[in-house]
């Protein structure tokens, strides 16, 4: 789970890491007042759950409270499409108004669960502000990594190695070690996946300031992290996503015309892929999961059927733990409720498939039964283009 920059900064401040003075604003007036308090010269930072904001116009400088207000008027309510936000973009609802930090040396500091090496890694570079993955390819010698384990945490000598690599001024050295210790402990304590300070600015007076921060938490750790779970912004979710979440459905909206309802993540991806292979576009990823109820199937189907972009649906169930008759009952219940006017291609395979087909067959609704995976996908594609 990603959190907003302003939330991440508040967490860091509690740890004693210096961040720029700033205020959160949700209106033009609030922005103006905040800028006034900070002396006029400020940076406005759009708060969206995505990186790449700078290039998308989400970070703007202003040299007076008036200009800050004007810039806020342009930013608030605007959809930002960044390299990471997906094609639909993210609407700016909050702006972090920050003091202008005098440019100094900028460094990169990251902590990450390194999935490939199955260790934790602390990563630094003298070239702050850059995309670290690109840098690791173009100029690997500009990066230093220290691997560590959750049992011991980041060791002191490792922190020192990183500090020497960065060639820090003496006056910043100790603070840097202190930051690293606290951050790495926080990382482990809070089940994080990624913590990036990029850039960490060394001001001319040698003060270290965390100018931009990204924090991503392990979703599987949230069950034991109530303070972090509480930071999730449900208003960022669409009504469909909210519904899906509350019924424990894995749903991701896409751009196409064919609604997909599938059990299992792998089969759901394969279903999207085969649709594309035959010239169609999936409207969503939807895995109803193994422990699904009839009610949840019904809600899932309603999400698809009520999506105006959807021209046809493909239901692809390989019954194992999930029973085909349960899925069929859920489909019928929701199709009755919503006055269904879209063709639905249904493929039921596995546990209780005959019973499932019987239930659907008796419902007198626009269902097409196809048992073959490939033919089902082809039919859904052609129906979506009719």
């Amino acid at each position, binding site marked *: 789970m990603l959190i907003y920059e302003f939330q991440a900064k508040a967490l860091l401040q509690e740890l004693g890491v210096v961040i720029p003075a700033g205020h959160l604003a949700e209106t033009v007036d609030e922005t103006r007042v905040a800028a006034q308090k900070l002396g006029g010269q400020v940076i406005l930072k759009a708060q969206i759950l995505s990186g790449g904001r700078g290039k998308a116009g989400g970070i703007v400088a202003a040299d007076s409270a008036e200009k800050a207000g004007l810039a806020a008027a342009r930013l608030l309510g605007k959809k930002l499409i960044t390299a*990471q936000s*997906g094609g639909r973009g993210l609407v700016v609802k909050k702006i972090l108004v920050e003091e202008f930090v005098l440019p100094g040396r900028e460094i990169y500091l990251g902590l990450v*669960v390194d*999935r*490939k090496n*199955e*260790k*934790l890694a602390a990563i630094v570079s003298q070239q702050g502000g850059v995309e670290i*993955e*690109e840098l690791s390819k173009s100029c690997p010698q500009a990066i230093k990594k220290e691997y560590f*384990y*959750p*049992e011991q945490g980041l060791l002191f000598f490792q922190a020192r190695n990183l500090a020497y690599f960065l060639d820090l001024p003496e006056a910043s050295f100790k603070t840097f070690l202190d930051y690293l210790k606290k951050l790495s402990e926080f990382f*482990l304590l809070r*089940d994080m*996946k990624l913590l990036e300070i990029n850039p960490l600015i060394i001001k001319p007076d040698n003060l270290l300031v965390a100018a931009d921060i990204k924090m991503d938490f*392990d*979703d*599987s*750790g949230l*069950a*034991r992290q109530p303070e972090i779970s509480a930071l999730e912004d449900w208003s960022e979710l669409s009504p469909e996503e909210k519904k899906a979440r509350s019924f424990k459905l*894995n749903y*991701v909206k*896409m751009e196409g015309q064919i609604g997909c309802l*599938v*059990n*299992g*993540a*792998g*089969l*759901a*991806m*394969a*279903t*999207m*892929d*085969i*649709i*594309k*292979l035959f010239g169609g576009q*999936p409207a969503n*990823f939807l*895995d109803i*999961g*193994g422990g699904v109820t009839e009610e949840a199937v019904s809600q899932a189907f309603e999400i698809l059927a009520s999506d105006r972009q959807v021209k046809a649906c493909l239901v692809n169930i*390989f*019954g*194992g*733990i999930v029973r085909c008759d349960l899925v069929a009952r859920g489909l019928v219940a929701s199709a009755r409720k919503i006055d269904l006017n879209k063709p639905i291609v249904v493929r039921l*395979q*596995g*546990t209780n498939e005959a019973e499932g087909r019987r239930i659907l067959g008796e419902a007198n609704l626009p269902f097409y039964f196809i048992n*073959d*995976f*490939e033919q089902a*996908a082809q039919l859904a594609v052609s129906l979506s283009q009719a």
Partner: protein
Amino acid sequence: MSILLDRDSRILIQGITGRQASFHTERMMEYGTRVVAGVTPGKGGQFHLGLPVFNTVEEAVRQKAPDISIIFVPPLAAADAVMEAAAGGLKLIVCITEGIPNLDMLKAKRFLAELGSSLIGPNTPGLISPGQGKAGIMPASIHRPGPVGLISRSGTLTYEAVYQLSRLGLGQSTAIGIGGDPIVGLKFVELLEMFKSDSQTEAVLMIGEIGGQAEEAAAEYLKRSGYPKPVAAYVAGLTAPKGKRLGHAGAIIEGNEGSAQDKVKCLAAAGVRIIENPARIGQTVKELMAERQGN
């Protein structure tokens, strides 16, 4: 033969008294798998499904000498259960549980490495050696004994693949779900190595998906080892958007890493037969095997 699991395997179920565990334990026993005991702390001394229940793995090992443990324990307690199994001397541990925190798994994996135990999963349907035994939650009826070794990161997509294979008369030596989480135990490389020396296995089918580097590592291994058996692969998620988690905790394209396109490219370069159409997984494996026999 088969790998990891055969008709002599003795199975222990941790968390046996839970609803899911009970249901699946019965299915495993129906299949003829030799389940010898269960563990649920606080319920030691009872019998469940006709099996003795122990408070600790240690006790279960002393009394019943199991060699594989299957874990159905809730996510926040599951890593502890995995380590308990390893400490009890079990050499193969299958963790079905989904939703275990990454950091717990990192600790558990190091613990297991020290004791020389192997892990399948977590977030896996488990494994099956058709006709011999089943250590997991997959529907047994779709499987047939035969020559194809199957390694997959998915659940239902594996069932789909197995169904296609069996329908074409291609049975499986062993089918293994390695798990959909970011940190899992045995992966493609270790299992390909085991299939290499298994006499029953004539070809290997890999089912990958977006996220991580396990398919890339497999490609490197296959190239380096001059792998002697034909390998086919399907990688799910060619249409997956970046940065979105698709169902499995591990199925996410992060930064520039983990796209299906990259994985397919690496595997193809290593001589793996790439399956583009997921409805033709069985067909492609069949053709590949026929070609190799023709040579």
